[in-house]
C-alpha cells in the first residue's frame, strides 16, 4: 500500500474565547493520518484530544475556535470550507463515533431511520428498497443480529454495546475514507469493549478506512493502533510507533501515564492477546446475547463446585503478598475477626405493573449472595454493569430495603463512597458543610469540634485547608472524590464500601486516589468492600475478589489465584477481555 497522508493537520491551535481572552486548549499540533492506518491519540481529559477530533469534523462548540493552522483532507483545507461543502464531506468522507452510545442516538427516532438519514443526505438518488437493503447490510456488518427487527426499534431498547454498533454502522454506511472514534469503548463493559475494538479493526482491514482512535486508555491504544500520539495540555508530547512509545517512552508525561496504568504484567501477557485479536478479527464478532446463554449453560453445571472452593478459599485467606505486608492489621487478624458477614442475601426491586389495582411486584436482582469481609481486608467485587455490584453495595449499606437474608456487621453500619463525584455530592453546599453533615446527623459535637474535625479530615485526604470554603464546582473530579472519601471517613468508620470510586476519573488521578485509599487503610485500620468493573484496579487494590454475574457471585478467590487460574467460565471470559 502506498502510504500517503489522507488527513494532514498542520499547526492547529484551538482556543476558547472568554470575555476577550483566548484560552488555548490545543496548541500548534501537527500530525498526519496515512491511508489505511489506525492512529491512536492518547491523553487525559483536558489534553485536547477530543477538541482535535471535533475540529476535523467542524463540530467545535460555538465558543471554541480554530485560531490558526490548517486541516487538509484530499488537498482541501477543511477549515476554509463553507458549511454547505463541509456538510457533504461529513458523514460520507469523514465520519465519527462518540464516547457515549447511550446518548449519541436520537431517542425518539427509530434505528432504521437514523441510519437511513445518512443515505438520504449523501446518496439521495437511491430507491427506498435499495436504501433499506443497504441499511440492513450495514447493521449486519457491524455485528448486529435480527436486523429486520432492529430496524424498527428505538435506541432505548438496545444495550450500550448494540448502540455503539449502530453508531458504527451509521458511520460506515457511506464508506467513508476516515473514521474518527472518540473513546468508543470507554462507556462500555469490558467484555464488550474488546469486541467493539475488534470490529473497528476489521472494518479498517476490510475497507481500508483510516481510523483515528482517541482514548485515555493506553491498553486500548496498544491493542489496535500501529502509531500513536501522546497529548498533554494541548500539545503533542510524543508520537511514533506504538511499540516504541510503550517500550521506550521518551517523555516524562508518557512515563507517568504508563506508570499510572494499573500493573498487570504478571498476569496477562498483553501481546499475546493482541495477536489473538488480529487473527480473530476476520471472524464476524458475535453478539453479546449468544455468549450470555453460553455462559449460562456453563454456570449451571459449575456453580456447585465454585461454592465449595469459595469456602476453602475463605479459610486460607491469609494471603501472603507484598501489598498486604504494608498493612500490619491483617497479620493479627484471624477468622473470628469478621467485619461484615453476608449470608444468602436476596435483593428485590419493585416493578411497576400496568394494572390499576395491584400489589407492587418484586423482581429478584440478587440471588443468594454470600460473602465476608475480614478485618483489614479489601474485598473486591468485579462484574459488568447490570451484574448487581451496586445493588449489593446498596443492600449492605441499607439503601435498598427489599432484602432477605443475613447482613451482619461487627461495628456500626459502613460508610459508602459513590462512583460519580460530580453527581453524588450537593453542588449548592461548600466542602466544609458537606464534611460536617454526617457529624450533625450523629449529633453530640459542638460547632468548634466539627470545624476541627473538618480540618483534620481535609488533611487526611490531602486537600489543603483553603478548600473548605469552596463549592464543588470549583474542584476537579479527583478533589471531589477526596471530599467524598472524607465524608465517609469523618465518623471514624471501620469499614467503607467503595462503589466504583475511581471509574469516573482520569488514569493519573485514579492512581492517586487508589494510593490515598491504601494509605488511609493503613493509618485507620480500615476494611474496604471495593467495587469495580475494572480488573486492573481490582488487581491493584484487593486481597480477595468476588466475581459477580447476573446477580450471583460465581467465584470468590484470592486475587492472585483468580488472575492465574480463574475457575468459572465467566471469570475466564472477563480476564480475557483485559486490553
Amino acid at each position: 500500500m502506498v502510504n500517503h497522508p489522507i488527513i494532514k493537520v498542520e499547526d492547529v491551535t484551538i482556543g476558547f474565547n472568554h470575555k476577550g481572552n483566548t484560552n488555548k486548549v490545543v496548541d500548534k499540533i501537527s500530525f498526519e493520518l496515512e491511508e489505511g492506518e489506525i492512529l491512536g491519540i492518547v491523553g487525559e481529559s483536558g489534553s485536547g484530544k477530543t477538541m482535535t477530533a471535533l475540529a476535523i469534523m467542524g463540530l467545535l462548540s460555538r465558543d471554541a475556535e480554530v485560531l490558526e493552522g490548517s486541516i487538509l483532507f484530499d488537498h482541501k483545507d477543511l477549515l476554509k470550507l463553507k458549511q454547505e461543502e463541509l456538510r457533504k464531506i461529513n458523514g460520507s468522507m469523514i465520519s465519527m463515533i462518540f464516547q457515549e452510545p447511550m446518548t449519541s442516538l436520537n431517542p425518539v427516532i427509530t434505528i432504521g431511520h437514523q441510519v437511513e438519514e445518512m443515505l438520504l443526505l449523501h446518496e439521495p438518488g437511491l430507491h427506498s428498497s435499495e436504501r433499506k437493503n443497504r441499511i440492513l447490510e450495514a447493521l449486519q456488518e457491524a455485528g448486529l443480529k435480527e436486523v429486520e427487527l432492529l430496524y424498527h426499534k428505538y435506541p432505548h431498547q438496545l444495550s450500550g454495546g448494540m448502540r455503539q454498533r449502530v453508531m458504527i454502522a451509521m458511520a460506515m454506511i457511506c464508506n467513508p475514507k476516515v473514521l474518527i472514534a472518540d473513546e468508543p469503548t470507554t462507556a462500555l463493559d469490558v467484555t464488550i469493549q474488546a469486541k467493539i475494538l475488534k470490529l473497528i479493526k476489521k472494518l479498517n482491514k476490510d475497507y481500508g478506512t483510516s481510523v483515528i482512535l482517541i482514548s485515555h486508555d493506553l491498553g486500548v491504544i496498544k491493542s489496535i493502533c500501529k502509531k500513536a500520539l501522546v497529548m498533554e495540555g494541548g500539545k503533542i508530547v510524543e508520537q511514533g510507533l506504538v511499540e516504541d512509545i510503550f517500550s521506550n517512552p521518551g517523555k516524562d508525561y508518557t512515563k507517568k501515564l504508563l506508570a499510572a496504568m494499573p500493573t498487570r504484567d504478571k498476569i496477562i501477557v498483553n501481546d499475546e492477546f493482541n495477536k489473538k485479536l488480529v487473527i480473530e478479527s476476520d471472524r464476524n464478532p458475535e453478539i453479546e446475547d449468544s455468549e450470555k446463554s453460553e455462559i449460562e449453560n456453563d454456570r449451571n453445571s459449575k456453580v456447585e463446585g465454585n461454592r465449595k472452593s469459595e469456602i476453602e478459599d475463605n479459610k486460607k485467606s491469609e494471603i501472603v503478598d507484598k501489598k498486604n505486608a504494608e498493612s500490619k492489621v491483617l497479620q493479627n487478624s484471624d477468622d473470628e475477626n469478621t467485619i461484615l458477614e453476608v449470608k444468602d442475601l436476596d435483593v428485590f426491586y419493585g416493578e411497576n405493573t400496568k394494572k390499576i389495582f395491584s400489589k407492587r411486584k418484586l423482581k429478584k436482582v440478587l440471588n443468594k449472595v454470600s460473602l465476608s469481609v475480614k478485618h483489614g481486608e479489601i474485598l473486591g467485587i468485579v462484574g459488568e454493569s447490570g451484574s448487581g455490584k451496586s445493588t449489593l453495595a446498596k443492600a449492605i449499606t441499607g439503601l435498598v430495603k427489599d432484602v432477605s437474608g443475613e447482613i451482619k456487621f461487627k461495628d456500626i453500619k459502613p460508610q459508602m463512597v459513590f462512583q460519580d463525584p460530580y453527581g453524588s455530592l450537593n453542588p449548592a453546599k461548600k466542602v466544609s458543610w458537606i464534611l460536617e453533615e454526617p457529624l450533625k446527623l450523629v449529633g453530640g459535637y459542638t460547632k468548634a469540634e466539627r470545624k476541627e474535625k473538618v480540618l483534620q479530615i481535609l488533611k487526611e485526604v490531602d486537600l489543603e485547608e483553603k478548600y473548605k470554603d469552596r463549592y464543588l464546582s470549583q474542584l476537579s473530579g479527583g478533589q471531589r472524590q477526596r471530599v467524598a472519601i472524607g465524608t465517609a471517613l469523618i465518623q471514624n468508620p471501620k469499614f467503607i464500601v467503595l462503589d466504583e470510586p475511581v471509574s469516573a476519573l482520569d488514569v493519573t488521578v485514579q492512581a492517586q486516589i487508589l494510593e490515598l485509599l491504601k494509605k488511609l487503610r493503613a493509618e485507620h485500620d480500615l476494611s474496604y468492600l471495593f467495587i469495580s468493573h475494572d480488573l486492573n484496579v481490582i488487581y491493584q487494590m484487593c486481597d480477595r475478589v468476588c466475581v459477580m454475574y447476573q446477580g450471583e457471585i460465581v467465584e470468590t478467590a484470592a486475587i492472585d489465584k483468580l488472575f492465574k487460574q480463574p475457575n468459572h467460565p465467566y471469570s475466564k471470559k472477563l480476564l480475557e477481555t483485559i486490553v
Partner: protein
Amino acid sequence: MGYTLKKILTLVITLIMVSFFTFIAFQVIPGDSATTQLGINATKENVEALRETMNLNENVMVRYVKWLGNVFTGDFGTSSQYGVPVSSLILERMPVTIWLAVLSILFIVILSIPLGIIAAKKEGGALDRIISFFTHTGMGIPPFFLGIIITIIFGFILKWFTPGRYVDPKENFALFLGYMIYPALANAIPKAAMVLKFLRSSIIRQLQMDYVRTARSKGNLENAILYRHVLKNAFIPVLTFIAMIIAETLAGSIMIEQVFSLPGLGRLLVMAISNRDYAVVQIIVLYIAAIIVVINFIVDVLYQWIDPRVRVK
C-alpha cells in the same frame, strides 16, 4: 388497545369520585338550598315543606345515586338562583367559554411556538433578547390588567371594537367572534409567554445533547437538525405544560369574563357559589374536573406517540 381501555376506565372512575366528593362537600356545609331560596326569615314549616319537595330529607347516598343517575340522563336539576333547568343555563354559557378557550389556545400556539423556536435558534442574539423582553413583560402583567390595556388600545384608541358590547353568537356569529378576539388575546398573552419561555429553554437544552452532535457529524444542516431531530424531543416536556394551560383555559377565566362582560361559565360559577346554587356549582365543578382528566388522558395518549421510551408494549 388494552392500554387505552384501562385509561378510559381510570378516567371514568376519577370522574365518579370527583362527583361524589363535590356532592358530599355541599351536604356538609351548613345551610342548604331550601334555606337560601326562602331567605332567613322563612318559617320552619315553609322550609321543611320545601326540603320535602327538594328531597333534601332523604339519605345522602340515595340522593347522590339519584343525582348521578339524573346527570347521566342529562337532567342536571334546577338552578335555585334562576329557577330554570341547570342544563339550559350551562348550554347558554358554555359556547362563550369554549370559544374564548379555542381562540386563546389558537393565540397561544401561534405566538409561543414560532417565537420560541426563533428565540432558541438565535440564543443570546438581539432577536432573542427582544423576544425575552416581551416574554417577561407578558408574564408580569396580570390578565385582567392586560384586558384593560387591550380595551383602551383597541376599544378606545383604535376603535376596533366597542368595549362592553358583547354580541350573542346566536344573533351574529361573526360579530361575536370579532368581539371575542380581544378577551382571548388578553387571556392568551401571559400563557403564551410562559409556553414560549419553556419551549425556548427546552430547545436550547436539547441542542446541547449528544445526539445533536451526531446529527451534525452526519452532515445535516442546522435547520434539518432543528426540525428533524430536536423539536420532537424538545416538545416532550413542554407538552404537559401546554396541556395544563389548555385545561385551565377551558375551565373558564373569571377575570377575563368580568373585564369584558362575557356571560361565560366562570362568572356563572362565582354567582352560583355566592348564592349557594349547588346544582349549578356541582355541574361546573364536574365539568372542570372532566376537562382536566380528559386533557390528561389526551396527553398520555400523545406521549405514547411522541416518546417511544414511555410506550407500553
